[in-house]
């Protein structure tokens, strides 16, 4: 296993996993087809609703095993896999689990709780495997739910899997129409869930495609996200280095405390270090823990740490 320092990490080739949710017909599939070198796994017959000029290669699979076979064929040929829809994929996984794992079946014939565990594990494995080779866009229909006083547009996806599908996603957007214009909402609100990252946040307008115009919205968005990720990594690099130096030095100081009179000197030395990110607060917390462990307490009158005498708080 190779251990990389932050400065050695390169995110320029990182693949992106994105969730796009929205009502049927809002334009999710057309949007997904704007991703780089895309192939659509069409479990929802969504391609039929896409204008002919924007259609791309598609795979139609009836079972999860067929999907896995298709994915093998995608390698080297495509850069993005669109799963249309994520809810259908979960249904496919459910069918697969019931056929292949007895634990997924309840005695009365229903789907077991363990079965959901099997689905979740496989979903995460598949997402991680796909990410190694492709960007992934999971499309989800939404259902209107009442949440307190607000209307909440939730992913159409069976059981608690709807929480888990967000885990591998870098970005998540709710696609909707405002005053006749399409928007992607990347910041979660009381009405829908979303996931902002790499500088992609808030509402992003999706321009209307005119005849003959290239459908490349996600090509540009992914490029922007990767650029921001790279820039973010570079901006954090010196801070992380500084943080690690301060933490190492501070821990070394704290480790050496043996006597009460060393405590204040150590605290001052910690505070004098060149700090970055949360190193100062973390080291102060470690210091407090250490003096407590050693039985020292701060004496406000003497303005120094003293050894606590047992029972002196009485």
């Amino acid at each position, binding site marked *: 296993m190779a251990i990389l320092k932050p400065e050695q990490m390169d995110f320029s080739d990182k693949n992106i996993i994105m969730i796009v949710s929205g009502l049927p017909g809002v334009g999710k599939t057309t949007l997904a087809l704007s991703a780089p070198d895309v192939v659509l796994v069409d479990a929802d017959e969504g391609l039929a609703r896409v204008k002919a000029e924007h259609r791309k290669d598609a795979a139609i699979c009836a079972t999860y095993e067929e999907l896995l076979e298709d994915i093998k064929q995608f390698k080297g040929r495509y850069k993005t896999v669109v799963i249309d829809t994520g809810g259908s994929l979960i249904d496919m996984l459910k069918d697969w689990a019931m056929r292949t794992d007895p634990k997924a079946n309840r005695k009365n014939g229903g789907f077991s709780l363990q079965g959901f565990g099997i689905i979740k594990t496989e979903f995460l494995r598949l997402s991680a495997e796909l990410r190694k080779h492709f960007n992934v866009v999971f499309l989800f229909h939404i259902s209107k739910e009442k949440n307190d006083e607000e209307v909440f547009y939730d992913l159409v996806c069976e059981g608690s899997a709807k929480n888990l599908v967000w*885990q591998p996603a870098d970005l998540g957007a709710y696609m909707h129409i405002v005053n006749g214009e399409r928007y992607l909402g990347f910041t*979660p609100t009381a009405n829908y869930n979303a996931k902002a990252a790499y500088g992609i946040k808030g509402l992003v307008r999706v321009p209307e495609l005119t005849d003959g115009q290239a459908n490349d919205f996600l090509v540009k968005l992914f490029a922007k996200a990767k650029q921001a990720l790279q820039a973010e990594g570079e901006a954090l690099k010196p801070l992380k280095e500084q943080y690690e130096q301060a933490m190492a030095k501070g821990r070394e100081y704290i480790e050496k405390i043996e006597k009460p009179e060393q405590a204040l000197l150590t605290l001052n030395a910690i505070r004098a270090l060149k700090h970055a990110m949360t190193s100062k607060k973390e080291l102060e917390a470690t210091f407090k823990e250490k003096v407590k462990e050693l039985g020292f307490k701060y004496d406000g009158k003497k303005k120094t740490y003293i050894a606590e005498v047992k029972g002196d708080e009485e």
Partner: protein
Amino acid sequence: MKNKYLITQSLLSSWQWSLRLDDGYKDFLKTLNREPIQPTKATLDGQQFENVLNAVLDGQTLENTHKWYKPIRQLAGELDGASKQVRISRDLKFGNVTFVCYGVLDYLKEGIITDTKYSKTYRVGKYLDSPQASMYMFLVPEAYRFDYKISDGEWVYTESYTPDEVEPIKLTVERFIKFLSKMRLTEIYKEKWKSKY
């Protein structure tokens, strides 16, 4: 006498829930009066989950037969080396009144504040309106992210917030003060939440 009053995310959360739940106001009055509240099973489970996680972070071995083995192992890997139970306060001023914002961070590591939750009924976005992320990022302005790590006992879900994604705590506190005044609760607050510092 200095006009300094303590304010915590639990107090603000309790107030926010009072506006949503039927019996929330009753619970909020208990919190405001600093009356002990009987912990629910969910609260106790949460404390137990955190205790197990902290024990593992302190080097204790967890048997792979333990009911929480999978999520604890994952979280222990992510939080290895983090500072635990970090107590922090920071003043927030409104005219001549100072509110001492106070919080105990579950974990602090490399610019990220992490709060663990144990919830059997988790749904994505559950903590979106919680004042906790906003309060804690005010307490640690050097932090660039706040992560909720929520476990249902088997899986770990993450909700991340950055400072620009949450309402500044000052606005929340401002609304809270107006609410207290409207409900004629200001005097109770001043009496029960006076800061010692």
